[in-house]
């Protein structure tokens, strides 16, 4: 069968045209592919995470309301279950643990959570990956969270030792499990999950009660509520029930650590799906417009002829629209492939931080349709003007050559101009100003790649700033030791006597609810000595603050969400110690990037609580050469319920960020390179096509290849250079939006962009632009002077 039998003549022209401009089409298709791929990656990962999370939550009955309490009797169960709207109750014992893991000098920490002796929990059920749940009749059996088990190569049957409530236990693993409550399991004091140093363990209630001396009591509540229930009312009622027993205030999922982190991630994914793909769509629409306009200008006479032969407007418009659609299809297919591949990679990356028993990839047919649809729509929108120009042109006019390009006398005549610039430079400048809209859009397109890079890379500046400047200035301790219960200040002396401890400073922490009019937040108030040095508090200019004898210092985030200003009196509702409420003045607004922070003098906090001088733990500075001895001692010290190793947290954080940097760098450099190449290569090609005759003339007049190329290079260099400051500005704006959009109670990202980030972004773009121009310069070198000059323009 000959091609003619199923392809019209115009369609054959179309395919040949496409083959002729394949390199330009490919450059555009790649830009489109980036748009499609980023959309599929971000939305695909968003949906996968969202669906997986909700399936895990539903099937394993993740709780809606949480509360912890010092010690409450189990006979409260009926009252709690009877609260209006409650559909499931689990009263648990949750205790911290210090672990001694083989092959690890530093202690790991964890939490031990009770599960019913028999049967499954009513809420927060466990997914059993392997083995079985521990038995209540055999002591020392435990189920371990999968990430910790994997990090330590544990299997059912493995043993390890742990310090729970001052008692050393040898534990045997019976099963590897996952819990909807610990999808994102973060050790206290850490900024990224460290699977090696933090684990979650599940023990039968009777066994744990025996260790923790909690027979007939619980210290943690998890509730499921009915769909139509009002969680706020349940929380209030639950608080009332638990208050006499040291209730620390119930809270919803939104405040649950693992859930909140996942939410944060989902918000960011959705934001990137909204911000990034439109950049590519815009650039590809502009590029389509650019090459189609040029193509139509070159085919003007052919179009006139087609009209003269009787082809209708629709047929001709359709012909060029088909070309655009074909380019789109290439881009969309490439985008699908890349989106799938990279989406899989991203999901794997998530799997490292989030512990899911399974991953659900929802059917994304609509996503593919939508991304293909908007890509085609954007490209056709870009093509509209060019195509309309063809349609509107009468046949007789179309067949005449267009009038010669008129240049305005911008820069004409002036003596200064000719003193400053050679005629070659004047040529480049005039061409640049001849099509101001096109030049401006080319500049904008290029600047978007700079902006994209700045937006992607600045976060490392912010994180670096956070880690290096702030953490080394505020958290100067090696480790934070936490006691199981508040102790007398004498405990500090015991800490100081631990081997290798050079210095120790006490702290006291208590759970509170801060309220200002109708704004309220749960958090802890941290009490520190006035002359605190290991854990310093910095003001907004990052200068250390001396704690005043009275009053509360709150972080910027707390001041924002509670609408607090200096001198305002904030209501402090104590969640432990009897639940009193006191008004305290805000004496300072301080800097803090992680969590919600409220600080006061430790003496003032003692007075506020009213139970005398107590401490909850200590910050220590240790002799680095004696760390192993210190660690050994900590693992043996019953009073220590937890240890947060700042040094390790920091380096672990840096390591993780470091890995992310290289992944993000290559992804975003790739994306920016594609935009830059798409824009610069296509403008160079079009400039070359428009000016081949001029270039040939210059060669005839005796200008060298390098001199002729200079005309091309000067114009593009001006565009690319002008794009830099614009790109920095746009990048600065995008980055600011990112910072504003990602502020949460968990993190506050400082807005820091180093000069080097602007420089790296520009270097990448300038480098790719130079390569793109080199491709086109080859054509200047191969220019056939004789042929070009012999043809009519």
């Amino acid at each position: 069968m000959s091609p003619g039998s199923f392809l019209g003549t115009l369609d054959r022209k179309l395919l040949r045209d496409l083959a002729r401009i394949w390199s330009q089409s490919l450059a555009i298709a790649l830009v489109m592919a980036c748009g499609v791929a980023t959309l599929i990656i971000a939305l695909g990962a968003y949906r996968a995470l969202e669906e997986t999370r909700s399936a895990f939550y539903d099937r394993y009955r993740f709780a809606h309301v949480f509360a912890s309490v010092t010690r409450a009797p189990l006979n409260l169960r009926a009252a709690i279950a009877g609260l209006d709207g409650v559909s499931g109750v689990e009263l648990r014992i949750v205790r911290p643990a210090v672990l001694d893991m083989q092959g690890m000098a530093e202690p790991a920490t964890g939490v031990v959570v009770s599960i019913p002796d028999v049967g499954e929990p009513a809420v927060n059920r466990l997914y059993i990956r392997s083995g079985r749940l521990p038995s209540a009749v055999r002591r020392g059996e435990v189920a371990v969270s999968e990430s910790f088990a994997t990090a330590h190569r544990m299997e059912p049957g493995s043993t390890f030792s742990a310090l729970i409530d001052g008692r050393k236990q040898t534990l045997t693993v019976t099963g590897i499990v996952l819990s909807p409550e610990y999808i994102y399991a973060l050790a206290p004091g850490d900024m990224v999950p460290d699977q090696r140093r933090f684990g979650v363990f599940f023990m039968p209630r009777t066994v744990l009660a025996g260790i923790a001396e909690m027979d007939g009591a619980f210290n943690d509540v998890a509730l499921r509520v009915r769909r139509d229930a009002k969680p706020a009312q349940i929380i209030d009622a639950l608080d009332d029930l638990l208050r006499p027993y040291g209730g620390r205030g119930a809270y919803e999922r939104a405040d649950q650590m693992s859930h909140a982190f996942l939410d944060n991630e989902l918000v960011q994914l959705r934001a990137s799906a909204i911000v990034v793909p439109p950049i590519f769509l815009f650039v590809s629409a502009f590029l389509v417009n650019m090459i189609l306009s040029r193509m139509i200008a070159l085919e003007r006479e052919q179009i006139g002829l087609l009209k003269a032969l009787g082809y209708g407007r629709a047929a001709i418009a359709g012909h060029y629209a088909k070309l655009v659609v074909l380019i789109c299809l290439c881009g969309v297919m490439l985008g699908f492939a890349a989106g799938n591949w990279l989406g899989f990679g991203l999901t794997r990356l998530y799997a490292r931080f989030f512990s899911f028993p399974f991953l659900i990839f929802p059917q994304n047919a609509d996503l593919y349709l939508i991304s293909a649809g908007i890509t085609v729509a954007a490209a056709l929108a870009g093509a509209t003007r060019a195509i309309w120009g063809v349609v509107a042109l009468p046949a007789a006019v179309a067949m005449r050559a267009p009038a010669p390009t008129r240049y305005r006398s911008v820069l004409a005549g002036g003596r200064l101009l000719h003193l400053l610039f050679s005629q070659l430079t004047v040529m480049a400048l005039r061409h640049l100003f001849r099509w101001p809209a096109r030049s401006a859009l080319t500049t904008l397109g290029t600047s978007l790649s700079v902006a994209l890079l700045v937006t992607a890379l600045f976060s490392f500046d912010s994180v670096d700033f956070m880690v290096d400047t702030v953490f080394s200035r505020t958290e100067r301790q090696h480790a934070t030791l936490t006691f199981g219960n508040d102790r007398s200040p004498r405990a500090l002396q015991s800490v100081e006597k631990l081997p290798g401890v050079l210095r120790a400073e006490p702290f006291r922490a208590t759970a509170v609810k801060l309220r200002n009019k109708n704004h309220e937040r749960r958090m802890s108030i941290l009490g520190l000595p006035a002359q605190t040095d290991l854990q310093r508090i910095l003001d907004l200019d990052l200068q250390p603050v001396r704690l005043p004898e009275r009053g509360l210092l709150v972080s910027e985030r707390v001041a924002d969400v509670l609408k607090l200003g200096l001198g305002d009196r904030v209501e402090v509702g104590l969640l432990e110690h009897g639940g009193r409420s006191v008004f305290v003045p805000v004496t300072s607004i301080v800097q803090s990037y992680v969590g919600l922070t409220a600080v006061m003098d430790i003496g003032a906090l003692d007075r506020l609580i009213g139970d005398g001088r107590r401490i909850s733990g200590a910050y220590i500075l240790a002799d680095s050469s004696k760390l192993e001895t210190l660690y050994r001692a900590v693992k043996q010290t019953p009073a220590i319920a937890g240890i947060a190793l700042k040094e390790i947290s920091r380096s672990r954080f840096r390591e993780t960020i470091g890995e992310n940097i290289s992944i993000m760098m290559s992804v975003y450099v790739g994306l920016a390179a594609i935009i830059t190449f798409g824009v610069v290569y296509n403008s160079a090609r079009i400039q070359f096509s428009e000016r081949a005759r001029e270039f040939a003339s210059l060669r005839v007049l005796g200008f060298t290849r390098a001199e002729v190329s200079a005309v091309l290079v000067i114009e593009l260099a001006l565009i690319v250079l002008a794009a830099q400051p614009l790109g920095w500005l746009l990048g600065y704006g995008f980055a600011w939006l990112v910072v504003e959009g990602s502020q949460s109670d968990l993190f506050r990202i400082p807005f820091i962009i180093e000069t080097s980030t602007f420089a790296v972004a520009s270097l990448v773009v300038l480098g790719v632009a130079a390569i793109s121009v080199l491709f086109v310069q080859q054509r200047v070198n191969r220019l056939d002077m004789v042929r070009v000059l012999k043809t009519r323009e």
Partner: protein
Amino acid sequence: MNKQDMTKPVFSAQDVTKVYRSGDVEVHALRGVSLELFEGEMAVLLGPSGSGKSTFLNIMGGLDQATRGTVRFRDLELTACSESQLTRYRRNHVGFVFQFYNLIPSLTAWENVSLVTEIARDPMDPGEALELVGLKERMQHFPAQLSGGEQQRVAIARAIAKKPEVLLCDEPTGALDSKTGIFVLEALSRINRELGTTTALITHNAGIQRIAHRVFSFLDGRIAETRVNETRIEPADVTW
């Protein structure tokens, strides 16, 4: 032009052949052309399309390379030159005028001329060159603001501004009406006379041949006939 000048050839071509290969087909554009052009001479190359005159002109101008044979410009063997030597040769010695003007649309008339004077070794003032072709008044116009004849005269001014030793014109009047064409020929003739520039001029128009010292008729890649005009006519007397 006196007898003595005739003894010093500016160009000498020996048995020049040019074969283009287009796929499997060989096109013999020149099949052994030999000629000499002398100082201050005005020569017309005449012939039908495809007779090889343009190919020969391009080889003389350093725009193209011969397949075999030698072409010399004074002591420079063009057929042995590298690409960059040919560029230098065009820059320093040759002026071109084409049928389609080939002006730079983004430069004014004056700027188009100074494009060349900026890189030439001993150029004339761009204004002077434009005055020679009678365009002093329209110096600051862009090509799009000039008529065809005016554009061609700017092209001539641009070609002569470097005071070239040779002026090569490929159908300079091909796109012009008779009145404008005569104007252009007068400019060329005046330059040949006043500056002594050796001029080779391709034309289809047999009427133009009588303004030349010698006429070379091309046919099928060869010179079929060489004729000396005993009496030359003024461009104004050319019948179109």
